[in-house]
């Protein structure tokens, strides 16, 4: 038994990466400059600017329809932006398919509705991309997948199909699946908002652990407790713009913009 892989920092590959990078000055791993996006004539994202350093944890919040999902989906090019620049790990996102593939290999994503592959077992879900994209031998991929399934605390479900798991378990599998690619950045799009209250905690716990391990994370979430404990910065979006950006203490105790104040009031009253 190897003990909890979370604490054994030298064993897990991504924490190795992080310990290397910790000695260097922190690099800007994501740069978004003057980015605009339209759906047809509808201007969804307006002049977004954001720089994320390696190991930083960003929480994005804002009212429904403000463009949060669209924004983080631009970062791994699930959506195309029409103006401005997005650079992820020194690779600029353009129409070039090879560059998009490079970025997607380095960026893991967790969706609101899990989006597990229902025709594959949990283990197969996790191994698929390492085997076919990273070209890792099956044995190795499976061993590494089991390690990540242990990290999200469901190694015993490895041979079940997603349809046989609860929502919280499915979302943890989805996190493990993304981690199996050993990404440098993790994107979360409201990972807990489709879950029943008693399952939210088990997913958040996994995310907190992940944050502690030094992963660069961008989370769209309305879990303010999570934002307070984990985030380095909280970003508030409204109407396709970044309205306010501040460390969590400042953001929650002393919001500057009236729109932020109104939003926080609504959220905290519920």
């Amino acid at each position, binding site marked *: 038994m190897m003990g909890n892989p979370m604490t054994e920092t030298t064993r897990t590959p991504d924490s190795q990466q992080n310990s290397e990078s910790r000695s260097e000055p922190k690099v800007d791993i994501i740069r978004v400059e003057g980015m605009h996006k339209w759906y047809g004539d509808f201007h969804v994202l307006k002049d977004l600017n954001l720089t994320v350093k390696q190991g930083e944890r960003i929480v994005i919040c804002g009212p429904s329809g403000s463009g949060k999902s669209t924004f983080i989906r631009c970062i791994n090019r699930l959506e195309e932006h029409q103006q401005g620049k997005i650079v992820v790990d020194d690779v600029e996102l353009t129409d070039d398919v090879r560059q998009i593939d490079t970025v*997607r290999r380095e960026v893991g994503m967790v969706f609101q509705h899990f989006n597990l*592959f229902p025709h594959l077992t949990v283990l197969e879900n996790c191994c698929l991309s390492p085997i*076919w994209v990273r070209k890792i031998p099956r044995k190795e991929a499976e061993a590494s997948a089991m390690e990540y399934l242990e990290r999200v605390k469901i190694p015993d479900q490895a041979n079940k*199909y997603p*349809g*046989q798991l609860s929502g919280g378990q499915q979302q943890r599998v989805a996190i493990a699946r*993304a981690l199996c690619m050993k990404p440098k950045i993790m994107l979360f799009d409201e990972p807990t908002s489709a879950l029943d209250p008693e399952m939210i905690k088990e997913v958040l716990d996994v995310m907190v652990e992940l944050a502690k391990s030094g992963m660069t994370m961008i989370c769209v979430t309305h879990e303010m407790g999570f934002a307070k404990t984990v985030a380095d910065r909280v970003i508030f979006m409204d109407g396709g713009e970044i309205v306010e950006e501040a460390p969590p203490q400042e953001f929650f105790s002393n919001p500057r913009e009236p729109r932020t104040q109104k939003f926080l009031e609504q959220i905290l009253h519920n």
Partner: protein
Amino acid sequence: MAESVIKPPKKQLGPVAWMRMHLFSSWYNTLLTLIVGYLLVTSVGPVLNWLLLDADFKGSDPSDCTGAGACWLFINQRLNFFIYGFYPNELQWRIDVMFALLALSFVPQFIENFPGRKWLGIFGMTGLPVVGYVLIPGGSFGLEAVDSAKWGGLTLTLIIAYIGIIASLPIGILLALGRRSDMPIIRGLCVVFIEVWRAVPLITVLFMASVMLPLFLPEGMNFEKLMRALIGITLWQSAYMAEVIRGGLQAIPRGQYEAADALGLGYWKKTGLIILPQALKMVIPGIVNTFIALFKDTTLVLIIGLFDILGTVQSTITDPAWQNVAVEGYVFVAFCFWVFCFGISRYSQKLERKLDTGHKS
């Protein structure tokens, strides 16, 4: 633990209670039961008499058919022709080998835990056509050539149906993917292809293939009639197949595409590993339905002078030596088709159950 296990209550009905519930639950159900019962009692007896009890199985020529029932002797006597057509007697072992391989590939699919059954199935889809391509026409590896005009009977039916099925599935998949492509030229071509072929009756396709195609082909380039019919049937069938499969592709939620994209799987890996397995599984009933329809539609090759099983039977029942054997002939043909179509249908049901991973959404 054991004392706390509670079994679900079993629903048990005695025969009388069952009948009261299912057959005589109301006055009109009672009436229906009586009518259907009367029809069954009056029809089953005569049919059974004709089929078996009064039928003649043994003998050597038409005069041995003396009973009031069916003259199965006729089928018995001409069975060789119905199965092999005009294929030379001494070479029929080649077809027997194909039948054996066909059975070896597909019968194990019904047997749970048969060793290597997956590989046998894959052989049936890929290797078998290749072996058949060498064995049946001959002309290579020291095998005597047999002109395709001599192929007939059940053999020909199976060849046409099998090739139509095996070839139309991949072409149909490509057409369906093409129709949903982002590239306008590919999409346009696929739409035109599908809509043109689907709008033409199979009879027309066969006439075109046998009569008109040679007019358009350059001098010296002339496929055999059977080959032309096969190409026509396959393309026609793949247009149908494409639409069935497109239905499955459309039912895949967008999240599946996005998850595959986010994991960095390229177009072909995403399609082959994530989208198609789910889409095809979803449309198994539709695919099988098209297969069965094609299997029966192969009888239409009769009109361009190919002798499939129906053709061989049809040509024999007009033989003056045999009197009044038409019904026997057609019943035999119907039975052959039923055996194969029922087999396909059962297999698809098995496959559906096996592929069910409990995902409901």
